[in-house]
């Protein structure tokens, strides 16, 4: 008897719980938005004579747009995608992990899906990470500067 009463209360509780929302609103980066980000990054790269790959991934870390500027080393394709994915799924610049490793936290190398290499930066709109940009091909600092220039475009994004 007591058992069935407890059970009934539990069901009641679950039903009350349903009055709260089960879904959240999410912002999604469109291809057009990604193109605007890459265009600015590309302009900066060309200005500096940098030969880089610029990759933009969505919030899930999946590739949306990629450009390998002429004469860029081909290995940068995968590194660029990896940096972008790292920044997207961990919601922080990939530089954070490079620094952790440098400061002795070798365990950061074991993080699934992350490459601890500077040059990946999240794309943020209204405090939400909606994707990330990864740049590879030149020095770590130059890669990141180009990525930051691209990511900054998101500040002007509207629905």
């Amino acid at each position, binding site marked *: 008897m007591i058992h069935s009463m407890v059970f009934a209360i539990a069901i009641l509780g679950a039903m009350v719980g349903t009055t709260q929302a089960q879904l959240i609103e999410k912002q999604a980066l469109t*291809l057009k938005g990604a193109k605007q980000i890459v265009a600015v990054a590309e302009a900066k790269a060309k200005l500096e004579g940098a030969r880089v790959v610029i990759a933009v991934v969505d919030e899930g870390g999946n590739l949306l747009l990629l450009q390998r500027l002429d004469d860029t080393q081909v290995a940068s394709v995968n590194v660029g995608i990896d940096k972008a994915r790292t920044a997207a799924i961990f919601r922080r610049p990939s530089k954070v992990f490079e620094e952790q490793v440098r400061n002795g936290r070798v365990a950061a190398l074991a993080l699934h899906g992350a490459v601890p290499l500077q040059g990946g930066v999240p794309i943020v709109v209204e405090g939400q990470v909606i994707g990330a940009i990864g740049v590879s091909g030149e020095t770590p600092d130059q890669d990141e500067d180009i990525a930051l220039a691209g990511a900054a475009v998101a500040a002007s994004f509207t629905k």
Partner: protein
Amino acid sequence: MRYLLTTLTAAAIAMSASTGYAESVADKRGLMLEGARQVIAATVDAARKADAPGGSIAVVDEGGNLLALERLDHTFAASANIAIGKARTAALFKKSTKVFEDAIKNGRTSMVTLGGDLQNFTPLQGGIPLEWEGKVVGAIGVSGAAQDPRCHHCGSSCVAHHAGDMINEFSVLMKAGAGAKTIAGTIHPYPTQAEVNKKVVNLWRKAHFTNGQKNILTKWFAWTRKR
């Protein structure tokens, strides 16, 4: 003296090597980013015209390395890697990836194992080499743009006496979103001119059987004959 001799020999080898230089290195054409962009733009245009539900389009260079990629809005995420794989496969084999899909479908299943050695080997239709003056300079791969496989009738033309009356049947088919099967399965009054509609549809279906369907039918007929 010995040192001098060594130097001379080295110089002689270097000279003989340099004379052969011209034949040792070949000229190569490489696709540039601008070319890749133009290819993608044309493909996106074609996808829109064909009412494709979306698509990821990848362009790789002749070494199979990614040059540019675009994933159209709302296209499923996995398509990005599939598109790269298709393009890469087409570039490295200098062949349309349909060749591999067909070969595997027609029974050469062991071809799937090519993926063991080759990173991202994707034997799926949708990868095509890009050629320039007869040389492969890269490849394009498209994924996620296929239409709903449930086929329906899209159009007809008819030349005959009373063609205007006869084509009604196909108009109904289109309106109902049905396929050729519907006409084939309908009993037509005999002998009437409209019966030819059914015959046309049957001929079309006969010509469009897939290899798998043919296989099953062959076995079925062989089995029924035995009985």
